[in-house]
């Protein structure tokens, strides 16, 4: 059913009504000014699965992730060449509005960044701005429930989002992303600032969420990638003549294969902890 038939964790997912990838990269290169940072990435992200990006720090995995919701546009001088397809539509076509893209493809950041607003307003903000037509209270509650934080905050929705603990803040940010009903959730090292217990909760949450959302996660933690993801992309960087680093995709496969039977030597060295 999935593109790779050897996937042992293949799920019979009622939502997987299509074999077409949710996101697809075709020859994506990223430049800062005239300096290349990422070299030609080809990649298919299957729907309703968790895809992990791993690799040593500085290899550009976060930069690649940010192509999916065009947040690279916000960095002065950053330039993306190549095509990124979302359900067959090129996200970098001139006709596509990045604001609309970002509503459809949500994102959770490395450090929890709740807005300095009440918990309720943190969730309602994006939905209200994007013209949500339904019942806002209901949406807030549903989003918080899906993010597995409702029970902890239901009695203090008026309190500041910054009053929560780090792990709670991150789940609040996940709820905030869910509230605008995206199809894809990008997670940029979402647990790197959290303690192990909070990390575990987020990982469990991701398993619940993948029934409804396509998840792409960047992580520097290989154990995390092997625990949570269905597919894994391994990125590496090579030194350039100018003294910079040029990131590229080394290998992309089912997580099991990446960790037990990698095709590339670099991957084998990395997953066995020999560098990175």
């Amino acid at each position, binding site marked *: 059913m999935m593109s790779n038939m050897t996937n042992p964790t293949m799920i019979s997912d009622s939502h997987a009504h299509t074999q077409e990838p949710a996101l697809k990269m075709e020859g994506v290169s990223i430049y800062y000014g005239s300096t290349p940072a990422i070299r030609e990435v080809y990649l298919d992200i299957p729907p309703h699965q968790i895809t992990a990006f791993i690799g040593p720090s500085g290899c550009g995995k976060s930069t690649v992730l940010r192509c999916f919701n065009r947040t690279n546009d*916000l960095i002065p001088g950053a330039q993306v060449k190549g095509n990124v397809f979302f359900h067959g539509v090129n996200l970098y076509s001139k006709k596509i509005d990045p604001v609309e893209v970002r509503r459809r493809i949500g994102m959770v*950041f490395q450090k929890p960044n709740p*807005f300095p607003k009440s918990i309720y307003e943190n969730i309602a*903000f*994006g939905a209200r701005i994007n013209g949500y037509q339904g019942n806002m209270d209901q949406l807030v509650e549903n989003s918080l429930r899906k993010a597995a934080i409702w029970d902890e905050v239901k009695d203090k929705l008026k309190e500041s989002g910054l009053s929560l603990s780090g792990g709670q803040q991150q789940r609040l940010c996940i709820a905030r992303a869910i509230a*605008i009903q995206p199809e894809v959730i990008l997670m940029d090292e979402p647990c790197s600032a959290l303690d192990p217990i909070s990390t575990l909760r987020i990982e469990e949450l991701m398993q619940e969420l993948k029934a409804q959302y396509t998840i792409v996660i960047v992580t520097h933690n290989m154990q995390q990638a092997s625990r949570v993801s269905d597919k894994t992309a391994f990125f590496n960087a090579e030194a350039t003549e100018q003294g910079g680093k040029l990131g590229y995709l080394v290998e992309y496969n089912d997580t099991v294969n990446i960790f037990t039977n990698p095709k590339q030597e670099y991957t084998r060295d990395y997953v066995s902890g020999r560098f990175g």
Partner: protein
Amino acid sequence: MKSHPSPLARSQDAQMWQPKRNLSKWSEQLVKYIFAAFALISVATTLGIVFTLIFETFEFFREVPIFRFLTETQWTPLFTNAKFGIWVLVSATFMTSVIALFVALPVGLLAAICLSEYASPRVRQWLKPTLEILAGVPTVVYGYFALLFITPILQTFIPGLKTFNGLSAGLVMGIAILPFVASLSEDAIYAVPQSLRQGSYALGTTKRETITGVVLPAALSGIVASFVLAVARAVGETMIVTIAAGSNPTLTFDPRVPVQTMTAFIVQVSLGDTPATSLAFKTIFAVGMMLFLMTFVLNIFSFWFVRRFQEKYE
């Protein structure tokens, strides 16, 4: 540079090391106490201001009952039939300040947003110092500008606008305090962490929505602090209103006619030959006390607000 002996040789060459430990300890203490005394001068200044004002104000109220001060509707302390209705001066201060704030707060905040969020780093680099020039212009210059440039222009299309009026003084005062609002608000807006902006963009918001929905609320305490400072400046501003608004103590909110603010009254009395024992002399301290109390309350409010609403980011 002298070559130092190696630490190992130290025991043999002990006589080469004779740090004046006692002297340096002694001078250390001396310097510390002198500087501490200097730091106390600022506290002494506040105490000096408070006691000066309280003392003379007390003397004033021994001659003029506070009831008259607060209820009379005329202000004629220099006349034989003296009246001491402070609201006459307060109303003028209030009116000119409100006009000034109508200019300074929105324009200053928008300029701060422009500098922090829209202007490219290069444009910002020369725009900000240029606005700071505006802050460095002496107020007597603004007074000249208000009286001899703005008022004649306004008179061409506002019928009944007198040579001295609250409107012109207020408008120019607004321009004079605008750079403070812009500069301080910009500091606060610029300091909002980039991660909040990214978090907002990731929800599918436009730039304006991110600014008004996330960045400004996050910078609220700093923006309010700059607003409060602007109010304090407007209330205490002296030369612009003295030159351009006139010295007619009138209880009115008509911005077209001459009025006298609290500060303008103090200047008027100071310029005259008023004996230090006279009631008029004590009056300026009573008015000064009123002014000080106003700015003090504003300060307390600002302090409380910043404490209450300042968000701590990592």
